[in-house]
């Protein structure tokens, strides 16, 4: 593929992530933090996020499958996930977490189960999309190209 074309498609793809609301401006913050001294910052953070979130989601599934759900255990997990997703700009995950927490507050097991599914769905979506994004970037870098800077004014 042509480098320019690849760069163009990366840009379009990134843009679509924002337009779909999968990511928000916080992700731009991450991108800004990535510089020569720390060239893989974004993917490092995101990878950490994936690891962390996988664990949290696993824990959440276990907690919610208990006979008696201990909401004192569930809530901090959701809080954690909300914090980290908000930090990387995964706003749909974050929004789902907000709803999740309100159900935790109500101690609504049924609602929590539904929210967990929702959060998982959003999480896998953002994971999938971000992995694609990174792949695209890697391809560009492998072809010797530059990662185009994100436009600020979307």
């Amino acid at each position, binding site marked *: 593929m042509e480098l320019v074309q690849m760069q163009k498609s990366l840009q379009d793809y990134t843009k679509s992530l924002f337009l779909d609301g999968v990511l928000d401006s916080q992700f731009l913050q991450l991108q800004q933090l990535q510089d020569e001294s720390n060239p893989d910052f974004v993917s490092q953070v995101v990878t950490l996020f994936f690891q962390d979130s996988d664990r949290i989601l696993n824990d959440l599934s276990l907690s919610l499958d208990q006979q008696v759900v201990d909401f004192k255990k569930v809530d901090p997990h959701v809080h954690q996930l909300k914090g*980290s997703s908000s930090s990387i700009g995964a706003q749909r995950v974050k929004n789902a977490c907000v709803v999740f927490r309100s159900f935790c507050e109500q101690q609504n097991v049924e609602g929590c189960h539904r929210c967990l599914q929702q959060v998982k769905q959003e999480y896998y979506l953002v994971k999938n999309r971000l992995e694609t994004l990174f792949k695209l970037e890697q391809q560009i870098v492998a072809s010797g190209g530059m990662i185009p800077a994100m436009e600020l004014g979307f």
Partner: protein
Amino acid sequence: MVCEMETDQIEEMDVEGLSSMWPEDVGTQADNQFNVGDSDTLKEVDIAEKHTMADLTRLPELMNTTDQGSSQLTNLVRQWEYMQDHAVRLLREELKILTRQREEAEAKELKIIEEHNFESQEPENVPVLDETSHLFRRFRQKKRDELVDRERVVIDEEFDTVAYWKQKALSLEKMLEASTERERRLIEKLNESLKTMESHSAPVEELTQNLKRAEGFLHFILQNAPIVMGHQDKDLRYLFIYNKFPSLREQDILGKTDVEIFHGGGVKESEDFKREVLEKGKASKREITFETELFGSKTFLIYVEPVYNKAKEKIGINYMGMEVTDQVRKREKMAKLREDNAVRKAMESELTKTIHITEETMRAKQMLATMSHEIRSPLSGVVGMAEILSTTKLDKEQRQLLNVMISSGDLVLQLINDILDLSKVESGVMKLEATKFRPREVVKHVLQTAAASLKKDLTLEGNIADEVPILVVGDVLRIRQILTNLISNAIKFTHRGKVGIKLQVISQPSFANEEQKETSVWICCDVYDTGIGIPENALPCLFKKYMQASADHARKYGGTGLGLAICKQLVELMGGQLTVTSQVNAGSTFTFILPYKVATSDDHSDDQDEFSDMVDHHQPEPDDTTEGYFQFKPLLGSIYSNGGSVTGNNFLPHKAMLTTPLKLTNGFVSDPSSNTGQSETVQVENGGYMDESRQNCCPESAHQYGNGNGRCSSKESESCSSSQASSEMESELTVSSPREEEKTETEVKETSQPKILLVEDNKINIMVAKSMMKQLGYTMDIANNGVEAINAVKDSSYDLVLMDVCMPVMDGLKATRLIRSYEESGNWEAAIEAGVDIKTSENDQACVPPTNRLPIVAMTANTLAESSEECYANGMDSFISKPVTLQKLKQCLQQYLQ
């Protein structure tokens, strides 16, 4: 007939229910008029005959002269005639029978005589006539007697002799005589009988009886009815009245008019009404309320009809009144209720409308606030990015453009902040804080800050009267906001001369309320300038939102037009008053009077005011708290002149440097106490811009200049507060040059790096924050929860703590409380009590109370007011909403680290 129908229709249209109660045709039949029925029923009823009163002489006359009267008489006469006829017919029939009987009797007699003449013996005649007839029986009996006599006569004499014939003639003559006598008696009897019959059926008696019955019936019907009836002649004098008011006597009413009898409201009206009816000749009804002395307030429904005589001339009126007071009262009550209902409904709908409008307004305001809030975040992003952009290599033109962009962005941010402030004040959300502060310092710093961004040849001065307390209690942030606003306003509109603040204690103003009267000292603050002034006609709208003195000014000077409105609202919120006096081309003076509580100065340690931090405990400056006059003169030979002394200052050598011509017109150097020299020096060295990042390095440079007395926290906080103020004011100076930044970084290295502690449990957040810090040129320590944070704070002295609120083990609020408790008490007992495992380190200085308040900034995911209030309540200084951005972090660091 047609005519009659018409009148009927008209009457029905005019007055409802005027149609007769009874069918019209009833009453034309004479015997139906007073259809009393069985008169025995009436006998049982006790009829009181006391109500009626009539002029007896006039009444018959009336009866004779009026149509109604004559028709009634006619009816009575006709009835009498009918009965009379009937009686006569009966008599005639009887007479006829009698006559026939007599004729038959005579015929029979003749026959008998003849038989006597020709037969000596004659059989007894069997009567064939009606035996029931009494007369005839008697007659037959008599006849039989005579026959016996006659037989006797016949026996006495010899047949066919003279004597016999003589005797016979004599006896026959006697019989004839007797017969004639009988006839005469019968006639007499007949006459007698006729006479008694006549006398029995005399019309007067019949009439009287009928009248009595009619009257009795009327009484029976009307005795308890609330009805007054009467007849009045054409002068409206009563001739007849039924059911009059009990206390009135006959002579009181008859022959008199209403007006003569009664006095009070309604009488005249009823009289007029009767007259009207009389004139128009049409019966009608009207409701009239009487208000008389005699019977009080009563409402009558009055029916009046004209009365005509046979010549169709009006001779008076009949009138009937029914008392309907209760009904009228009820009706009026109903009407009133209905009216009230309508009014209530109208009010309700009005209220609903108002509520709706209010709700709409609230919603609109809320939306404005929300929108402003929503706009603020991305906008700060834009401005922040622009600022970051300005740290990259740019050519002159790009930099210029960028500066415009940043300052425009800042203006919009300012506007949004203003709107948010306003809506906060208006919605009552804004809460005032009561903190101790030193008014002198506030004035000084406001002026200092203003001088920092001053680009004009203006003298800024502060003048505080001696009697103004050193320490007062109030919402220092808001007061500063007001002062800053007024000062920047004054500077904006002043081109030469001076701008100043004057503080003095005044006596209690008249608008003070009870609570204020007790505990307050009233301080009057004048912010004066020698600027363009405000025309008198512009004064009224000066404090209105989005209004400026004129459109020209708005164009020329810019600004949001919200500043003064906010000032006014804030002052009023604090229970004070903001006024303005002005003279065109001579200047304006904005005066605000506020109540403050006087703080006792012996509890300094409790002083939470950020400005008190500026009191340098290591280098006591007694004059700083009491000096009453400051002056800032940028661009002049002496940048700083201070009315007070500057003793104890070992930086005098640097003061000389202040006189070196500087490109900068920078106010923050004017602080007399310590590090002005250094910062100036740095500036000179760098020979470039004065900017905020430069300020960051002030403490370090102080270090470098080697007075070497350990931490320079006091200086830091001093510069911090001044730059905080300056960031409130203007952000044009915040543009930093990368060259300088790099230089600073390399110059400073670890020794002078401010120590920052991040307390956060989320790895990703830590990673992001760390990276941001790095980009901003800082490093930081990490604590994963409140307990770790406390231990970290205990072991090393930090310049700033960024504290997550929600954390496992111990949350940020509790950790902050414990740290504050340590600052107050000098020991960690509260923390130990709370179960924190305090590790004792080798160089334990924990028993020494810290001299400065450690700035703790909360990092919270909720940006709601409650949450921020909770942060403040737990001793946090400020908060950053999550997710943390470069811009927020930078602002925070600027605020607390310079």
